[in-house]
């Protein structure tokens, strides 16, 4: 984070945004000054930075970058003498007005310490920050500094925030834990998470700005995030509220998160994940996939299983205290979303306490009951889909099954098993009866299979279409020769 006065921002019709950095030009200049000043004193470095500030169009940016870089540096004292001791000896002999007398005091103290006079003069202020020598610059690339600057600017702007609404694609447990840890409060509709603090209810306050800023790194670490914050700033002399909006699609360079690996709470969960991926490979398995609103709380299930719009959640309850379980049961009873609970048998709670499916386990979370639940869910889903398809109208003559299934948000199996009135399934397509009638007209008197094949290919249809409109293929050996009428239409 930066000192507030070094933040560069832009206002635009009621909105405010930090001026983000995308290229490395200025950053590289600042880094090169630091490198040149290695072995020199901080006050010298400061002078050089000031020189660059004067040449730059944005002095705040230069100063902010220098500030961030300075935190990566190590400074050391330029003398082996103890400045405090030197001062003590000098000042106890003071004060002096006469310069000659001053000189003789310095000489006598230099003699006491066995060093040249200059060393004494140098040591008087040697413990002041500006007299320290730049010794080491810890490695940081210009790109990393750009990213750090962008994050720091965002956080610094957030110091003035009165409230914030955000969405994230993952990283839920860390985010909610951090919200609680920072003493913030949240409210959610299941998608957007609205954060502020207890007092925010009673009046606009920037009190929680610092805490909101601390939440930012966790949000931008997730995928597909968006932030909207209310920022209170003075324009003229009156405080005004501005909106700050940012999301992952803006592609601002922010520090990388390099912990992409899935992290498991226990070996048990990891083993379970690997086994299930093997046996239920058509299901997508996600770790801590979402949050579910449950009264004043949220539940972040350990696993989510996804397929064709189906969502099944699983919460694993291992070794915990009685209070923990009671709180959990209370939470689970406050949501309509079904969550499977895998319970450690050593815990003394009956399956009845939880509203949904409960699986018991001793050592490992068993795969079989989960697969059964997923299968049951799939069957239920197909049944449900079939019911819903009957009420759905299709306008197209030929439509791909998969496309239509996705459009209707049902499974392909359900669509295949459905009798859509006036439609036939031909290969991977649904084809209307009307279209087949027109196809018959198009075929007309043609009987040579090569000619017929051209027509079928044009519509990407298979031979099955011919059967449906009352033709069969006459084969000569393995070669289809011509078609002839049958009487089997309908």
């Amino acid at each position, binding site marked *: 984070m930066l000192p507030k006065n070094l933040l560069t921002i832009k206002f635009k019709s009621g909105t405010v945004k930090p001026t983000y950095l995308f290229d490395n030009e200025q950053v590289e200049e600042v880094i090169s000054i630091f490198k040149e000043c290695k072995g020199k004193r901080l006050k010298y470095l400061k002078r050089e930075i000031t020189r660059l500030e004067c040449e730059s169009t944005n002095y705040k940016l230069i100063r902010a970058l220098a500030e961030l870089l300075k935190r990566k540096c190590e400074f050391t004292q330029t003398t082996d003498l103890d400045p405090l001791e030197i001062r003590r000896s000098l000042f*106890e002999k003071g004060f002096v007005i006469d310069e000659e007398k001053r000189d003789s005091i310095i000489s006598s103290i230099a003699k006491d310490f066995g060093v040249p006079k200059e060393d004494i003069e140098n040591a008087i202020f040697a413990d002041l*920050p500006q007299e320290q020598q730049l010794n080491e610059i810890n490695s940081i690339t210009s790109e990393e500094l750009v990213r750090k600057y962008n994050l720091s600017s965002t956080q610094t702007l957030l110091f003035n925030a009165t409230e914030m609404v955000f969405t994230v694609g993952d990283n839920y447990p860390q985010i909610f834990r951090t919200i609680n840890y920072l003493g913030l409060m949240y409210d959610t509709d299941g998608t957007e998470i609205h954060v502020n603090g*207890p007092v925010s209810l009673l009046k606009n306050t920037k009190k929680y700005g610092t805490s909101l800023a601390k939440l930012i790194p966790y949000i931008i670490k997730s995928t597909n995030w968006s932030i909207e914050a209310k920022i209170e700033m003075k324009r003229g002399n009156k405080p005004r509220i501005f909106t700050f909006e940012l999301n992952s699609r803006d592609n601002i360079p922010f520090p990388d998160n390099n912990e992409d690996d899935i992290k498991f709470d226990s070996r048990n969960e990891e083993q379970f994940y690997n086994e299930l991926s093997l046996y239920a490979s058509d299901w997508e398995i996600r770790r801590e996939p979402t949050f579910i609103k449950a009264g004043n709380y949220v539940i972040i299930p350990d696993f989510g299983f996804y397929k064709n719009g189906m969502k099944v959640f699983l919460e694993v309850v291992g070794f915990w205290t009685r209070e923990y379980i009671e709180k959990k049961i209370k939470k689970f009873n406050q949501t309509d979303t079904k969550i499977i609970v895998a319970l450690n048998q050593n815990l003394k709670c009956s399956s009845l306490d939880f509203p949904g499916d409960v699986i018991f386990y001793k050592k490992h979370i068993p795969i079989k009951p989960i697969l059964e639940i997923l299968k049951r869910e799939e069957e239920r889903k197909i049944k449900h889909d079939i019911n819903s398809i009957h009420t759905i109208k299709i306008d197209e003559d030929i439509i791909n099954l998969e496309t239509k299934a996705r459009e209707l948000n049902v499974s392909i199996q359900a669509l295949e098993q459905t009798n859509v009135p006036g439609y036939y399934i031909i290969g991977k397509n649904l084809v209307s009866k009307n279209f087949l009638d027109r196809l018959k007209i198009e075929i007309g008197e043609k009987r040579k299979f090569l000619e017929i094949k051209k027509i079928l290919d044009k519509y990407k249809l298979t031979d099955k279409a011919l059967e449906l409109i009352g033709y069969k293929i006459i084969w000569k050996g393995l070669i289809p020769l011509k078609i002839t009428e049958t009487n089997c239409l309908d």
Partner: protein
Amino acid sequence: MIILYDKGTITIDEKVNVPYFKWDDRVKKYRAEALYYSEITEYLKNSNLNFEDKVLDLIPCPFLSSTIKLRNYQRDALNTWFWKRKGVVVMPTGAGKTIFAMKIIEKMDFPTFIVVPTLDLVNQWKKELKKAFSVEIGEFTGNKKKLEAITVSTYNSAYINASYLGNKFKLLIFDEVHHLPSESFRQIAEMFVSPYRLGLTATFERDDELHEELPRLIGDKIYEISPEPLAGEYLADFETKIINVEFTEDEQKKYNDAQAFFKNYLLSRNIKMRGPKDFQKIVMRSGRDPEAREAILARNRAETLAFNSENKITELAKLLDKDNRTIIFTKYNNMVYKIAKRFLIPYITHKTKKDERKEILDKFKKGIYCSIVSSQVLDEGINVPEANIGIILSGTGSSREFIQRLGRLLRPAKNKKAILYEIVTRNTMEVRTSYRRKN
């Protein structure tokens, strides 16, 4: 119905209509600012509503007694404060604010939280409180977090932890209360439920008018006494002398150049300088307009020249005398270092570490050092006894600062005449600054 304290607020678990409360859908409870605790309980009692008050979680308080004797004006202030048990008392530095506050703590005999601006003041208060009451005194600061029935904290620590501390004390005292109305610090007063409140200061008014917030936060200004009636009897008498110095030729030229640059900028942009607000506007511009920035830099150069003029050092040399205890004030650290090095005078800035500062002040007290040079850290509250000469080498024109600095010299000590010198560069804006303060 139960009322509870929750992170700087008060909650009610039932749907009732009580002033100050608002429905909080996040937790399905009513919520109000902690500041209104006494008004809320009073309302509930008057309305004959049945309620269980679980707001306070007080620290057990030993019986408090002391042998403190108040002076007449302190007793008057105490009686006035007891009328409402809330409010601000204005007394000059050195008039015994700490003694007065301690008598109030003793008479109230409740767990008390005291907020002061600096760590030095925390130590000073703790020492005095311990001496007066012979009980353990708590400290809640960046260094130490130990709560006792009487606990001393800094504005910073109290602000950061207000939501945790707010229901543990019945009496809340702010030393140097003019710090309280700032945007962040006022939240201490807002997040504490303490029904009894006392603010102490020598300088009630703030340049930004924010002192108007104080009645809401801790009560009205209920008592004020100026230094004049106390001078001689309770405060050392002092006299002020202004010494004008000229620029050196070189400085005058540089000063004129810098001033001309600034004025040209004003002319070119058609800006008229009528007050600090106009200057603020140019500062705002400087982010976008490089010329505005140059102009400000030029003005700063001129100001620095005026404050640091070489002849001031020469003049200072004339005033130094080993028979006096002298404190030299200056705004710029660079000036502090210059004086320290040239005259071998111990210095204190905000960067000086606590131990070294203590050592310097102790040696000053004992007479091992007869002078100290300092930037602004000695402004508030540190007992620097037995200084009889003050020299102001620069100032910022705030009347508050001026009074506080004077106060530093006003501690009653062995029958001495105190003199405050102000060394000012002639023909600069600084003369105007100095003039403005006196009026």
